[in-house]
């Protein structure tokens, strides 16, 4: 049996600007792999998908204790850097646009459930938007010692919803 265990699969099949993946992080795993695949927008304006964590009380953590750094790779121009400290979200998890333009992203989340550690993430992403390709290489952290049980992905602009895609959460099982 693989040590990579599927925990949750969320299919996006209706227009939405916020997707909450709840009750996926637990004491069963320390490291998680999340894939976001084929998310595409309702309209023809591209979207910037951000992320926030959801704590064990079910609340989305919007405190300004996120840190992130992301390199944006672009097919048609110079790469750019984006960063933030004491931020209220993790920016640029993914870009997307209307199908057939879309995106794919692989993300790792480290020690979210522990209330004695910070929560860290890293991700690699590729997308097509406005006829051009690109991607992200990013890292982030939530500098709070709180138990995290879920993650929220959302349309940063709040008016560029998406209506398709699949998000999968896997746990990396460690056998002692």
């Amino acid at each position: 049996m693989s040590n990579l265990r599927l925990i949750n699969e969320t299919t996006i099949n209706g227009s939405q600007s916020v997707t909450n993946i709840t009750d996926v992080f637990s004491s069963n795993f320390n490291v998680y792999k999340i894939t976001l695949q084929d998310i595409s927008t309702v309209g023809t304006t591209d979207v910037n998908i951000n992320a926030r964590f959801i704590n064990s009380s079910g609340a989305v953590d919007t405190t300004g204790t996120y840190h992130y750094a992301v390199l944006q790779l672009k097919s048609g121009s110079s790469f750019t850097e984006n960063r933030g400290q004491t931020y209220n979200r993790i920016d640029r998890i993914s870009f997307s646009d209307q199908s057939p333009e879309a995106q794919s992203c692989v993300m790792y989340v480290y020690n979210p459930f522990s209330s004695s550690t910070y929560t860290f993430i890293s991700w690699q992403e590729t997308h097509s938007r406005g006829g051009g390709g690109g991607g992200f290489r990013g890292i982030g952290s939530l500098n709070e010692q709180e138990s995290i049980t879920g993650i929220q992905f959302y349309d940063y602009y709040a008016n560029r919803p998406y209506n398709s895609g699949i998000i999968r959460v896997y746990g990396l099982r460690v056998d002692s």
Partner: protein
Amino acid sequence: MSLLQVANTLITSGNEAQIIKLQNCITTDDVYMLVGSNIQVGGTGGICDIQPLVDSTADTSNDVSISWFDLKANTTFQAFGNNTQSMWRVTDGMHTAPNAANFMMYLYNWYSSSEYAYITMEVTSHNGSNLRGYQQGGVKKDSTSFNGIQMETNQTGGGGYQAGTQLTLYRVI
């Protein structure tokens, strides 16, 4: 993708260590995935390095070529390359808990006795002041067959790697 765990070390209280060795666990020509979780040291300012093992002995020859891009949350990113070093650096400027380093690495051709050994890594770490992490690729220009890996620190505070530090190796099948 399927993963098969082949080695794991979790540092426990009272068993802090400056070197963690995963020995005799690379036994095929498959790709291996190395996961570092909650890596923390007992004092500030330490480094975290990776080196290949032949049985219990680290190969410290200066034949490692690397290039990395250091993502930083507080300032301009940094690019770096070097052709003659003895290890792969995971991070430096380490800090005590709850600050920590975490990483995902893939090891290619480590078991082969005819190919060079390659590595890719993505690191996310916090040094107490800032979030940073390498996006790194590298090669050890040596066709030795390596059957293990070690992670070491020069930080002696509290005995090195602290309880909760975990290093796990999976074979990708």
